């Protein structure tokens, strides 16, 4: 499918990202093997808890080789350029959300931070307006889920006011 027709002038180049993927799979296989050998052997009959990880590790090892071959042959599907900035912005928003939840800042502040970061990543520049929208929206979600469906969401200074 991704094979180029013979005689295609474009040269097959080694795909570096593919090499990294193959390497990561191999590392994962090694981790599984180490973890499996740490486990005690199984019961008298049948197989113990370490058997399945070894099977999966062998599979991962073979797939690392398969992916390596694809990468060396340049057999990876074509891909378009990607802009790393918005990705990092969203991940920053997620990190902020995790930190706020971790330090007891509550659901509303945490969700608002993620909302503003994501909408900025998608090109919005009106941060204050978005922040206001986010606060109202997350407060409504909090009220709906916490009061109506009685799901417990983490509370912080803002939630205690409600």
């Amino acid at each position, binding site marked *: 499918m991704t094979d180029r027709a013979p005689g295609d002038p474009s040269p097959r180049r080694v795909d570096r990202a593919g090499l990294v993927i193959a390497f990561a799979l191999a590392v994962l296989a090694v981790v599984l093997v180490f973890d499996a050998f740490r486990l005690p052997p199984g019961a008298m009959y*049948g197989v113990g808890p370490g058997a399945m990880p070894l099977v999966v590790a062998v599979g991962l090892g073979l797939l690392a080789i398969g992916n390596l071959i694809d990468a060396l042959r340049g057999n990876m599907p074509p891909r378009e350029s990607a*802009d790393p900035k918005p990705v990092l912005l969203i991940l920053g928003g*997620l990190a902020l959300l995790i930190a706020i939840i971790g330090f007891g800042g509550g659901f509303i502040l945490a969700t608002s931070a993620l909302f503003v970061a994501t909408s900025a990543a*998608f090109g919005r520049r009106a941060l204050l307006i978005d922040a206001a929208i*986010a606060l109202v929206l997350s407060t409504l979600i909090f009220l709906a889920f916490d009061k109506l469906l009685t799901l417990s969401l983490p509370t912080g200074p803002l939630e205690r006011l409600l």
Partner: protein
Amino acid sequence: MIDTFAQLAHGMAVALQPLNLLYALIGVFLGTAVGVLPGIGPALTVALLLPVTYKLDPGGSLIMFAGIYYGGMYGGSTTAILINTPGESASMATALEGNKMAKAGRGGPALATAAIGSFVAGTIATIGLAFLAPWLVDFAVRFGPEDYFALMCVAFVTVSATFGDSPIRGLTSLFIGLTLGLIGIDKLTGQARLAFGIPELLDGVEVTTLAVGLFAVGEALYVASRRHHAEEKLEPVRGSLWMTREDWKRSWKPWLRGTMFGFPIGALPAGGAEIPTFLSYSTEKRLTKHPEEFGKGAIEGVAGPEAANNASAAGTLVPLLTLGLPTSATAAMMLAGFQQYGLNPGPLLFAERPDLVWGLIASLFIANVMLLVLNLPLVGLWVRLLAIPQPWLYAGILAFATMGTIAAKPSVVELSMLAGFGVMGFLMRRFDYPIAPVVVGLILGPIAESQLRRALQISLGDPLTLVQSPISATLLAIALIALVAPFVLKGLGRFKANED
């Protein structure tokens, strides 16, 4: 036969209780509303809406699920027609013709044929489910653990390798899922695996966290990363919503043919609705009296694939309910929905909780009718949902996605896992690895392992037990063929290409 009718009537009595009808209505409404958002497929719709059902009783929650399931499917096809972004590969054929129709000002009839076709297909397929299920259950009670293990091997191979673009990529995704499934306490011995001393990992990886991370966070990151490429355009629905006589005449046969493709392929543990939708598309293209319209907005090209898509969705419920075997990401999420109540679909559930199973099947009929009645009149509302500006849309999706995890387990570790799976989903999209096999691997891996170990315990450790049962020997042979076939066919293809 008579028994099926009696059971179904009993199920109807459960599903028609006012409260359950309300649950079905809420499910259909929420499912469509979430499913219509661009980039959100049925699997993610179910995953995102799981928290809404946390506090319901199992019966009500499963009925709501039936509505969410069909609603999400319908919402997805609306998006495919109006903005040409199929949320999943099964809607690709719909997007192909449907979007062209919308561009030509025939968006109304495209939506209508999709809705009515989905209803026809869903109803026929649900009848198929109701009659096939008891028969399969009778067969499945004879399954030993080794047979179940072999069956899961078939599902693993078909979901990941056989029908994807590249068997290596599909299998890579599957094995990542299997690896994630190993994390946590081994149920048979109580040993912790791959937990690295982190207490939160002892319970294993939550399916919803994985699905929401891969699908919602991954999709948001992916769309954000390529925002500079092209803006998607929303086609307004112009003109009449209704289908003309001519449209009806051209639609009804594709609906039925699509159903015939969709249901059997969905019911086989073959996974995915892509095959039947594309089979249906190419069949309609071949049979049509208007070949010149194909590629420019032919109504047959929407009617057939949409019916196939819905019929196969009902078809995947056959292995899910009778064998506990999910063969698509959406079915895996449904299984997660069952598991949150400690219910395991399979022959035992049919015997022990017939009210639940038949209530669910009956609700599928009701959800179908509700969708037909709700969707066309409400199409204006769905279009308005589609018009939400992209920044707010994805910000809202992420806020809702993280909320599900926060509500289930408000821990830093769980949220970090969600973010990590999001990055994984982004990379898998960027490098073109299929996502569904990861979810299926995570949910099915531990079940397959415990069946295998049980089989080996019974046989006193003799691995030959796997090939001594005729059922399991056959299934393992099928799995092997399904695994090798794509490699052989690819080799043949290459050979042919060299011949030219």
